[in-house]
Each structure stands twice: as structure tokens, then as C-alpha cells.
């Protein structure tokens, strides 16, 4: 009797759980669905009311926006001077900034993380150094954009790849140090110690023994640093204006025109969204740990 009642209860409970689950997924996915479908709509289907929700039924999908944004030279000169031609160079800027800054942050950050995980610092304690580095993560970029602008202008880094790369490195570095420090603390140190006893220097040990073992963590923190840089906007707004504009900066600029071309901007938004999502899926296991700076093991 008791078991029957328990089972009946769990059926309604399960039903409820799946109901909530489906509602949550609809809420999460609908905005993505909307931007994805808008990228394949003719203008007339974007601005109509009631909105066209279902492809092939309520609107006929088209590749025209993609051709216009990606291959603007198919169109007349008047049209393609508006914005179309730039997407490749902006995409390249984003890729260079994100790759460069994530490589730099991972390289210097993992060295520091290794130092903090394996050696004892006397004058300033390890945890003081670690928390000093962590505190940088909380700095709102809005606080440092003005000095950055002036510094970068002085040394000629404004609107250059190197400039935006360096600025993004400052954002990812504290994160990389903390994530890798956690990682090194978990890697057993016996192998390294025997290597050192065999006469390997610290740097050789680090490169030949430690890095191969820590590779998954290294890749994950580099990927997350890549995403931070790829998604970053306020620094890009202050530090780039023409040659080094990243994709978010271009999209934000286009949405500020009086009558945004929703269908074209949706194409660009999709181009911006897809890489970080694909990367996130690849390093899914590390994301919770990474975003909480190692405080929660995902």
C-alpha cells in the first residue's frame, strides 16, 4: 500500500519536474531561436506583425542576408560601402585578440600558478600573492578604461592588435592563475621531484613533466580566456575604433544606428555567438570550476 502511494506521488512529481524542465529550456532557447531565425528572414518577415515564428510555414527562409554580409561584393558598390565588407577583418581582429591574449595569459599565468602551487614565498606569503592576483579579477573595466586610453595613446597602441591583446590579457590573467593553481595543487608532485633530483632545472621540469600532465587544465583555461576576450566589449569600445574593431564592437555600433538592419545584424550576432558556444561545449567540464575561480568543483 505504502509503496503504491509512493509511486503514485513520484509520477506526479516526475511530471512536475519535466514540466519545469521544459519551461526552463523553452526560456533558455527561445532567444537563441529568435536571433538564429531572424538571420534567415527577409526584411518583410522581420518587421511584420504578428511575428513570423515558424520557418517554411509563416515565412520563407533565405540566405540573402548571409550573402549580403559575408560576400557583399555580389551587391552594388553603394550597398557594400555601408558595412558589409568589414566582417572578415572584424572577425580576424576578434580571432587575433582572443588567440593572442589567451596564449599570453595562459603562458604567464600558468608559470605563476606553478610557482604559487609548488614553492614557498617568504616575504609575501603565497596566499597573499594569490589573493592579490585574484583581487584584480574584480576590477570593473570601466574603472581603468580612461588610464588605458591615455597610456595606449601615449605608446601608440590605440586601435592596434597588440593593444587590444594586452588589455584582454589583463582581464584573463587573474582567472588563469587561479584556475591553474588549483590544477597544479591536484597534480601529484612526486614525478617532478624525482626529475629535479635527476638534475632537471625548474623550467625544464615545468615544460617537460608538468605541462604534459596539466594539459587538460591548460587547454580549458586557455579556452575560457579565449571566450572572455571574444565576448569583451567595453575595452574594445575605448581602445579600438577602426582598424582593430572586434566583432562585439561592430555589432554594438550597428545597433545604435537609427533604423538597425535587424536581419543583417542577426547574421553578425550569430557569427559572434557560435564560436564561444562551441568552445564552451568542448570544455564543458571545467566551466563551473573556471567561473567560480576554483571555489566550486564542477
Amino acid at each position, binding site marked *: 500500500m505504502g509503496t503504491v502511494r509512493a509511486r503514485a506521488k513520484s509520477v506526479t512529481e516526475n511530471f512536475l519536474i519535466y514540466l519545469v524542465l521544459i519551461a526552463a529550456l523553452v526560456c533558455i532557447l527561445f532567444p537563441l531561436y529568435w536571433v538564429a531565425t531572424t538571420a534567415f528572414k527577409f526584411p518583410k518577415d522581420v518587421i511584420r506583425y504578428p511575428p513570423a515564428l515558424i520557418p517554411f510555414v509563416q515565412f520563407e527562409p533565405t540566405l540573402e542576408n548571409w550573402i549580403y554580409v559575408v560576400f557583399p561584393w555580389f551587391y552594388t558598390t553603394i550597398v557594400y560601402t555601408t558595412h558589409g565588407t568589414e566582417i572578415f577583418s572584424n572577425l580576424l581582429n576578434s580571432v587575433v585578440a582572443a588567440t593572442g591574449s589567451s596564449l599570453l595569459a595562459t603562458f604567464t599565468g600558468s608559470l605563476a600558478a606553478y610557482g604559487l602551487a609548488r614553492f614557498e614565498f617568504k616575504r609575501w606569503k603565497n596566499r597573499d600573492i594569490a589573493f592579490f592576483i585574484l583581487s584584480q579579477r574584480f576590477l570593473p573595466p570601466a574603472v581603468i578604461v580612461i*588610464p588605458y586610453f591615455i597610456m595606449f595613446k601615449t605608446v601608440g597602441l590605440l586601435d592596434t592588435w597588440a593593444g587590444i591583446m594586452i588589455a584582454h590579457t589583463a582581464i584573463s590573467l587573474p582567472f588563469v592563475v587561479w584556475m591553474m593553481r588549483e590544477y597544479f595543487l591536484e597534480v601529484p608532485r612526486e614525478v617532478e621531484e624525482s626529475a629535479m633530483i635527476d638534475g632537471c632545472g625548474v623550467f625544464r621540469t615545468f615544460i617537460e613533466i608538468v605541462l604534459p600532465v596539466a594539459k587538460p587544465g591548460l587547454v580549458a583555461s586557455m579556452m575560457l580566456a579565449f571566450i572572455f576576450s571574444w565576448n569583451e566589449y567595453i575595452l574594445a569600445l575605448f581602445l579600438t575604433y577602426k582598424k582593430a574593431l572586434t566583432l562585439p564592437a561592430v555589432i554594438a555600433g550597428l545597433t545604435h544606428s537609427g533604423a538597425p538592419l535587424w536581419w543583417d545584424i542577426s547574421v553578425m550576432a550569430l557569427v559572434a555567438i557560435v564560436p564561444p558556444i562551441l568552445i564552451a561545449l568542448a570544455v564543458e567540464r571545467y566551466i563551473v570550476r573556471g567561473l*567560480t575561480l576554483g571555489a566550486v568543483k*564542477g
Partner: protein
Amino acid sequence: MKLSRVSYRDPKLLLIAPTVLLLLVLTIFPLIFSLYLAFCKWELSGGKYAVTTPVFIGLENFLKLASDERFFDTLVNTVVFVGGSVTSELIIGLGLALLLSREIRGRKYLRVMFLLPMMMTPVAVGYTWRMLYHPTNGPLNYLLTLAGIMNYPVNWMGDTKIALFSMILIDVWEWTPFMFLVFLAGLQALPIDPYESARMDGASRWQIFRYITLSALSPIIAVAVLLRSVEAFKIFDIIYVTTAGGPGTATEPVTMYVQILALRELSLGYASAVAYALLAMVIFLAVLFIAKMRKERI
């Protein structure tokens, strides 16, 4: 043995030096520089009245700040935004995590789905929601009236009373998954024994939740809430792309006021003073967070 100890001690400074130097140049120096600017008059606009080099004026900027209504408006907006979004994210995220923490089919895919909003480029998130919120042909008004939840269309971004709420809603969409995933990880790490003994002692479901689950989760909840709050104080991109702070200054956060002062009014000294006021608030939260981390770990 002796050799290894020597090599252990010496290069450790080399390991952390690049990171510490980078952070000194890229965050500490800019912070000192902008602190100096906060005590200066430096106005690049105004034609012949422009102040083209920083002139030290003492506390004048901060006195101006104390009577700047727009600053207080943006301050209130920021605090409401942070409080509203972090509280909602905590409640919804915790509820979802508790509900979905048991074994359900396709759990891995579920986690992946929840990653999507927070990995999406924020500028693209804002842009997407701007389409959803569109007063005349946005799908949100259409679907909500269709479902009978609303009787008349709402001007999500144009109505002074609800524009800030609309901004909070976007942040909730983007970051509730973070809370959910963190709490899910926390719940999975909980030991089973206390639950079994509590059930044997006849504890009610509420008691089990209150005295076992919630008290075991509380450190993780504190970390997640503090981390999210610090991040929410950085809010810029989403609002910049959707309402650009409007209507009026109804949704303008402090970060955007800094940007407007710096890039539009070219009043770099005063902008630095406003930025420092923002920093002061964030430092308070960051210190809480770091104290929490120091207590829990290492």
C-alpha cells in the same frame, strides 16, 4: 638532494615575476593614474575653454559628485540592477537545482543547454533581447498576449517604470544558469548519510531542506552570490546595446555614466572620480568575497 633544493628556491621569483609585472603595469599603475586624474580638471571639449592638460584641483570633483543627481540616479540604477538580478538568479537557480538534482534522463545535455546563455557574447545577448522586446513587432509582446498573460502590449525598453526591470530580466536569463550549475555541482557533492539518518528520525522534507541541504550549501551560495554581485556591478554591454541607458537615465548604470563622461563629454578628470566611486562599491564586495574564500580554503 642539495642541488634540487637550490634550484627549487631560486627560480620561483622568475615564475611569478611576469604575471606580477603585467598586473602592476596593467592594473595597479592605471589605478594610481586614474586616482590622480580624479583630483584633476581635464576637459578636452569646450573649444578655447578646454583644459588640455590635467590640472590639480583637489577634492573639487568629489564635491561635484556629492551633488550630482545623475550620478545618484545611476548609482540607484546599478544597485537595483545588481540586487534585483542576483536575488532572482539565486532563487530561480537554487529552485531549479533542487528540482533537477535527482537522476533524470539526458542530464549531460541539460547542463550543456544551461551553458548557452552565459557563454553567448553579451553584446549579442542585448541585441537579441532588443528584438524580443521590440514594442510593435517583437515576439515577447505577441506571445504573452496570445497566452493571455498580458492584455495589452508593453513597451519593455521605452517605459521608464519597467525598463530597468527589463534589463534585470535579460541578466536573469543570461546568468541564472550560472547559479543553477554551481548549485547543481554543490548538491552532487553532498554526502548521502545525513539524509538517510534524518529520514530515519522522521524529519519532514522542509526540515531536511532547511537543516541539511541549505546549511551544507550555504558556503557555496555565499561564494556564488558575491561573485555574481561583483560581476553584475560591471554591467555595461547589455544595457548599451538595448536602451543605451534610456529612456532618459532610467536604465543608466554607473559604468555607462563613466563612458558618457569620458567619450562624449571628454571630461576625463570627473569621469575618473565617478569611476572611483564605482570602485569603492566593488571593493567592499570583493573584500567580502576574498575573506570568504580565505576562510573556506587553503
